[in-house]
């Protein structure tokens, strides 16, 4: 499973990539593989304020629906509208074109509470 080293991770299989004073959020390669064909994504409204760990979006695969949680507290400032027409981007490019929403964290320092690539790798190994 691919785990890029340029970003942070959660135990619930989201990734968070810092960009300026915002972070892009998506789900990991492991998560998309476990879900299978993604066929629908319920996106949050731009402007919504969310707590760390709050369910922000829903990714539906053929077999199941999965909540996507905010990795840190903040405000949703953008959503990936391309997913409305092509939700399969999450399967095809989970770390790139398949990003789900962009948050402006209350405090960028909160990202330090998340896992790095090695830490996430350990989570996957403990789940296997």
């Amino acid at each position, binding site marked *: 499973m691919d785990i890029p080293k340029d970003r942070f991770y959660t135990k619930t299989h989201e990734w968070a990539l810092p960009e300026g004073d915002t972070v892009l959020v998506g789900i990991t390669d492991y998560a998309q593989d476990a879900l299978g064909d993604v066929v629908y994504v319920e996106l949050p409204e731009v402007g919504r304020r969310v707590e760390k760990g709050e369910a922000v979006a829903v990714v539906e695969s*053929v*077999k199941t629906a999965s909540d996507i949680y905010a990795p840190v507290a903040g405000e949703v400032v953008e959503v990936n509208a391309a997913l409305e027409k092509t939700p399969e981007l999450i399967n095809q490019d989970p770390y790139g074109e398949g990003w789900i929403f962009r948050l402006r964290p209350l405090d960028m320092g909160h990202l330090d509470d998340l896992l790095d690539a090695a830490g996430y790798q350990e989570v996957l190994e403990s789940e296997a």
Partner: protein
Amino acid sequence: MKETPLYQAHLRHGGRMVEFAGYALPLQYTSIVEEHLFVRREAGLFDVSHMGEFLIRGPGALAFLQWATVNDAARLKVGRAQYSMLPNAQGGVVDDIYLYRLAEEEYLMVVNAANIAKDFAHLKELARGFAVELTDVSEETALLALQGPKAASLLQGLTEADLSQRKKNEVFAARVAGRPARLARTGYTGEDGFELFLAPGDAEEVFEALLAAGARPAGLGARDTLRLEAGFPLYGHELTDATNPLCTPWAWVVKREKEYYGKEAMLATPCADKLIGLVLEVGIPREGYGVYSGDRAVGRVTSGGYSPLLEKGIALAYVEKEAEGPFVVEVRGRKVGASLSPLPFVPLK
């Protein structure tokens, strides 16, 4: 967890194994959507060895089956098959089944894997007083389903039998890839296709031969999306011990002109609900989601999922008989518009 004779073959082909009715079976090999579409356009191969098979033999076999099933078994000629149901004493459904007449006094009944023990006990009980012998041959039977528009041409390359002469619902013995098999032109996908009953020791060889001939393996995930798109019921969802089949789109299976177990109760039970097909504007409906007519709760989704052909969420739902819609489905706290659809959801051959 039990394994089918194809367990190792599933692992070799990358099957994602899950538990279903006590068996380890592949949910998918590559992608449910890909496997679904390959069945609709080419030919997919399913391992359905978990299904139950009972042999019913003896001079009283027909009389017994007339009593124990709702379809008219007397219309079944040797070498033919029919869809049917096992009624209970209350007019509900013990199971939905497929019945094959193998010889004058010999029938094969295929039942749902989760119901094997329940069905067999029920049939044993009903068989008292009939000159009939029941044998559960589930463990000695492997079952493959080759489904799709190219199923016949692909299978033809592996058998001497002239498949062009075999109609839907025919059952016959033939060798496939050199192995003895019983073939039936039946299935659960809405496509043309064949089901192959095999000795467990022959299953892997035949499975591999069909794949080498161009079929692709398909898992339980695609099996469910295909049957849902085809508008077929799944026991435990659209049909249960408490479902009166006369209140369903499958009422045609029940032949009222004959006598059968539980008939009076079935005829006396009024239909409070009807089964409808719904296509959602957005989102994916799942089992248990509420269905509304305007603001009024009128029913519940019994099977829901994604239709790879329509690229939309589709559902089978029971709603109050009088409910007219327009219907709305509550998807994770959000009310989503849903249009009524005829069954099947997609045009099928």
